[in-house]
């Protein structure tokens, strides 16, 4: 035993714990599920293998020189290089590690484990000490192993913490007499519906909703503990699911009195496997609410829902089957205007929000609010104040007094078709689209783009494509539809597209900007 040897061991351990930042960051972003985190580990497996091979080579070289101390020192030096590397990666990452209580406990566990192993090595003679040495070095070298270990060691503590928080949240909910909990779930549209519902209910009630997309059990627990006030009258709880049983777990905590199910679709099929499972999971919310005798509002426009429900549900949507219905929909420079038919009572509303999905979300929120006694005047006013999310079918005024539908952040095929449909329904306007098309859609990319082109040709008066090569598939679709070629322009940048647009824009022109891509895509 040698002091120098011990120091290099400690240095190795320190660098190992330091490198844990990256691992824990990944574990945290995978919601502390080691199974999901493992995907990151296997992705970076090759890197770890190279590091190991390299270390093995130099260590055998020095071992052959019969100089184990030098070997250890060198190892430590190699490990030390990881620290600045680690800091650099952290600085570059968009979503950094958040030092929550749990992360601090995980670091604490890592420090204790390493300290324990090194102390044992120093104290224990013979083989036992050697084992501790090997263990310590292995964990310092291969940080994912250390990460798995600390996760496992702290798991019982975390479970106890979790149970305490859950109980505390339940207590807070129970102590607020008269509080109504509304569960909102669905494959798509749940976050928007939640925010619209919150806005409308705020006309009459002190309303709290889960912020952002906090929709896991612990997210709900945190919202209850941090945001619920004694005077809160309604708690809107968004519920997300990736596995069968997820929604039930949240319902057991929040005990919802009312439910909104916005859609059932083929989402998260890697874990759900079938749409049937998605349906079952989403309707765990309906089961919980019905047990309490509450009402369940479902979107009748969602095929997967419509085909599976009986008449115990309150259906909303645009179809004949809906009790709460959007009717007489029209679009204009002001936004959308439509009537909400609440089982006979009609509220005419106007909103800046565009698109069928937004209208259906508004109908859902209006139906719930109406059933809770919010007056038609208040609903009408609240709907008129809703604001679109930035660059998502966002209505703005533009060059020469024309109207712009900014859908620059949309990049999914169905969304694009919906945006083109919205553009198409601006009656009496000259309709212009600027788009580079869609990217990164794999094998179906050509088909989607061609389809977009075909639809645009049907709905638009003037089409401006951005990127000479990349827009070929859209062009194919446009020409297939028989669009006049003199109304089709292809330019090489958005700046050029804008310049061209400004020459033909006037008060009666509406422009849709669909999916703006960074310049590196444009060629």
């Amino acid at each position, binding site marked *: 035993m040698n002091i120098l040897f011990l120091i290099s061991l400690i240095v190795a351990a320190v660098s190992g714990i330091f490198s844990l930042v990256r691992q824990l960051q990944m574990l945290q972003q995978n919601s502390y599920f080691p199974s999901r985190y493992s995907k990151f580990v296997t992705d970076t497996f090759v890197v770890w293998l190279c590091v190991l091979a390299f270390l093995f080579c130099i260590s055998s070289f020095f071992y052959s020189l019969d100089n184990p101390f030098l070997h250890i020192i060198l190892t430590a030096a190699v490990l030390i290089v990881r620290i600045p590397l680690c800091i650099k990666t952290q600085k570059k990452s968009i979503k950094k590690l958040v030092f929550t209580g749990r992360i601090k406990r995980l670091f604490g566990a890592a420090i204790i484990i390493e300290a324990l192993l090194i102390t044992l090595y120093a104290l224990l003679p013979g083989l036992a000490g050697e084992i501790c040495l090997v263990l310590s070095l292995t964990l310092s070298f291969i940080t994912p192993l250390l990460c798995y270990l600390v996760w496992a060691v702290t798991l019982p503590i975390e479970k106890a913490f979790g149970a305490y928080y859950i109980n505390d949240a339940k207590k*807070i909910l129970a*102590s*607020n007499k008269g509080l109504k909990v509304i569960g909102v779930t669905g494959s798509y549209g749940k976050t928007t519906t939640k925010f619209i519902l919150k*806005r409308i209910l*705020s*006309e009459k009630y*002190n*309303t709290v909703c889960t912020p952002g997309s906090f929709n896991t059990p612990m997210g709900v627990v945190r919202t209850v503990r*941090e*945001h619920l*006030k*004694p*005077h809160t009258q309604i708690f809107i709880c968004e519920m997300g699911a990736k596995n069968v049983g997820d929604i039930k777990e949240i319902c057991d905590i929040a005990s919802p009195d009312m439910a909104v199910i916005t859609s059932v679709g083929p989402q998260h099929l890697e874990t759900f496997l079938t749409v049937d499972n998605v349906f079952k999971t989403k309707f765990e919310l309906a089961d919980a609410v019905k047990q309490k005798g509450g009402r369940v509002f479902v979107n009748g426009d969602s095929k997967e829902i419509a085909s599976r429900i009986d008449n115990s549900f309150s259906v909303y949507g645009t179809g004949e089957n809906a009790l709460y219905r959007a009717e007489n929909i029209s679009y204009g420079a002001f936004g959308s205007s439509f009537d909400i038919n609440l089982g006979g009572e009609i509220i005419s509303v106007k909103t800046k929000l565009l698109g069928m999905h937004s209208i259906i979300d508004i109908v859902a929120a209006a139906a719930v609010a109406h059933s809770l006694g919010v007056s038609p005047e208040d609903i009408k006013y609240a709907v008129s*104040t809703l604001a679109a999310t930035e660059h998502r079918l966002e209505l703005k005024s533009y060059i020469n007094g024309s109207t712009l539908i900014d859908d620059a952040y949309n990049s999914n095929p169905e969304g694009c078709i919906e945006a083109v449909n919205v553009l198409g329904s601006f009656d009496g306007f000259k309709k212009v689209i600027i788009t580079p098309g869609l990217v990164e859609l794999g094998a179906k990319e050509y088909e989607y783009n061609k389809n977009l082109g075909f639809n645009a040709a049907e709905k638009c008066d003037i089409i401006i494509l951005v990127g000479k090569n990349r827009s070929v598939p859209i062009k194919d679709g446009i020409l297939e539809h028989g669009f006049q070629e003199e109304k089709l322009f292809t330019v090489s940048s958005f700046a050029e597209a804008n310049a061209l647009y400004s020459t033909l824009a006037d008060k009666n022109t509406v422009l849709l900007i669909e999916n703006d891509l960074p310049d590196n895509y444009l060629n």
Partner: protein
Amino acid sequence: MKTNVAFFFGCRSVEHEVSIISAVQAMRAVDREKYDVTPVYVTKDGEMYTGDALFTIEEYRDLPALYKKCRKVFFARNGENVVMKYESKGVFSKAKDVTIDVAFPVVHGTNCEDGTIQGYFEYLGLPYVGCDILSSAVGMDKAVFKDVVKRAGVPVLDCIEIRSREYAQNKEELTQKIVNQIGLPLIVKPVNLGSSVGITKVSDIESFDEAMSLAVSFSDKVLIERAIENLREINCSVLGDADNCEASVCEEPFMNDEILSYEDKYMGGSKSGASKGMASLGRKIPADIPEELSNEIKELSCKIFKAIGANGVVRIDFMLDTAENRVYANEINTIPGSLAFYLWEASGVKYTELLDRMIELAFRRQRGRENLTFTIKTNILSGVSFGSKGAKGAKL
């Protein structure tokens, strides 16, 4: 878990004691099933105290003894909440912070009711009951109040506004001018006080100066208007907010003197009445006036309430010229004595319910504000490099 309501009262105001009486009454009437009550007594020096002794009116007779039974507190923001912190007396007396959900100011007069305490709550981000800064301030300045409600089509008596220094420098000329313009008798009053403090009726030109010097001792700005000879005073309370409000029945306070004086208003003319506040004042509820007139006053009251953007409960005082049979809006009390509960009980709203509705209105206003954007969540500075290169590094 109950909503914690902090009642603020006292304050650096000439109506300090009146405020204590109003607050003690209100704290006793609050629905304790629904609310927890935290009394916050603001001393004449502006220090804040809390403690159970503050619930009893008799305790206020000996203030030093009262302070000893209470603890000094201050307020601060803590994340999403506003908390009341105890001033620590040594290391071991560390009491837990108390989260306050809503503030209920029951304060009268300058340095508090005039928007000052409302500004304090706004600054803390604490929802509060009653008028906001602007409507409180408008309500406190009688001249500005007249301008605002006149614009809304409410009849008011024309007035002259004069500043203390202006008067001192040019007494004779101004006195003559005012008397000529307005005529005698006239009323002189400080622009910013409620509770009739400092108001004098002037019947001859000789007593004008005395009236002025009393008024300027309370306020830098003085208001002079025509005195109505055949005067009846009619008051009406309004409850609600700018979107939706309703008026109470009208009352007619009895006047010992020609103007309702401070003694009339709060001492009730008798020695034992001191602790009962406005409720004990000699008055006729509902006022003995024709229904038509009463409806007109109620309508004007709601108009005034909306014109200044009031919230919660206010009491509006009208002057009725019986000779001409005309009403004029005189002044508004944005936090009326005893919160005008006696007018609401006469209108079928129990005091407990009145307080409940006032608190609900505070939350309603808060919700309206939350729907607006005040701060941009992202920190613009986070993307700026200030750098060690000095000014060149900053790319704002």
